[in-house]
């Protein structure tokens, strides 16, 4: 099975592991990630203002390419996922925005939100299935207590992202179970780590990160996993709690036995 894949800028540089292990695992699961040709950076943040058109065109281009290939578009980075899924929803539902964007793009076939955007985790849940995934695990991470960190980008706004219950998600917890480990539920798993403000004010970023890490630690976590490079950076660099943070794909690759070549 082939899907279109949008890695995003960070996965090509500072978050190579997120990308590398994601690709390896997908292959092991029988899915080929076909990188969108000449993709451009999504900009990292979706601007909700209705008169912001140009900043969303790179996402539209990627979406249209996937549509032309007749494939779903898979993303891995939480930020890219948020931007592309929300842009897609705007193209489908906001006729005015879609018209303006199409006027800029001059595509052969105008794009109106036809592509299905899915996060890698959704692909694991809906395409592969967590039960199937569990069967393919060769190194179950037995006894490891892992805290899922959703952050704010993966789930909100809930009506657009529609990935899981935004207040009581379970997709990463189910993933953790599938790779043989034990999920730790803690209240701050869907609260913001303050990553966006790291350039503006490090002290806020530190405060917010520590709140998340502390919450996970009190709940008994030995490790935090995330899909967001900025969360990972912020929790590790600005957070002062001693708790490792890794990409979920790294654990996936480990469990599937494809981590080392």
């Amino acid at each position, binding site marked *: 099975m082939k899907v279109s894949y949008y890695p*995003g*800028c*960070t996965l090509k*540089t*500072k*978050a190579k592991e997120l990308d590398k292990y994601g690709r390896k695992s997908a292959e092991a699961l029988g899915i080929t990630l076909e990188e969108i040709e000449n993709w451009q*950076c999504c*900009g*990292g*943040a979706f*601007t*909700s*203002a*209705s*008169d*912001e058109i140009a*900043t969303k065109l790179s996402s539209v281009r990627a979406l249209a390419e996937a549509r032309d290939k007749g494939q779903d578009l898979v993303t891995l*980075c939480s*930020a890219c996922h948020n931007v592309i899924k929300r842009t897609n929803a705007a193209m489908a539902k906001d006729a005015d925005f879609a018209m303006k964007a199409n006027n800029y793009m001059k595509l052969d076939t105008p794009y109106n939100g036809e592509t299905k955007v899915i996060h890698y985790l959704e692909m694991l849940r809906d395409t592969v299935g967590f039960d199937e995934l569990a069967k393919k695990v060769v190194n179950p991470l037995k006894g490891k207590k892992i805290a899922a960190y959703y952050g*704010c980008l993966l*789930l*909100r*706004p*809930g009506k657009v992202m529609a990935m899981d219950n*935004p*207040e009581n998600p379970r997709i990463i917890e189910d993933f953790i179970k599938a790779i043989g480990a034990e999920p730790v539920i803690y209240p701050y798993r869907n*609260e*913001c780590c*303050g*990553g*966006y*403000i*790291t*350039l*503006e*004010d490090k002290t*806020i970023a530190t405060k*917010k990160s520590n*709140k998340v890490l502390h919450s996970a630690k009190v709940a008994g976590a030995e490790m935090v996993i995330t899909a967001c*490079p*900025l969360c*990972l*950076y912020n929790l*590790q*660099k600005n957070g002062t709690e001693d708790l490792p943070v890794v990409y979920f794909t790294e654990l996936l690759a480990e469990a599937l036995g494809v981590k080392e070549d």
Partner: protein
Amino acid sequence: MTELQMKEQVLRMSGVDPLKCMRCGKCSGTCPSYDEMEYHPHQFVYMVEKGEISKLMASDSIYKCLSCMACVERCPRGVEPGKLVEAIRLLAVRRQGANHLKPDDIPAMLDEDLPQQAIVTAFRKYTK
């Protein structure tokens, strides 16, 4: 622009209707950046309704919002205060020379692990 024109602009850009607010304060109850802000999410809604846009534009609060959308997600009336903050911030940085982040300042902020995401996001949020 007059205050009224700015209010209309903000409402148009954000698509928010502040009249839907029932003043429950859940946005400010849930805001992770509350203590950093001079004006809090519920005040944004009320002040936009009253047309006090320039006060909000001048405040540092618009840069303290984490854009985490907690207030948008949890508002029982679907008011979406976060979108107001964003619209007002855009209004502020779109003025000539009002970029909140200057490219020249970037090198000093970098460290070896800082993901690109942080920089592009900051540019998108703080500059025009």
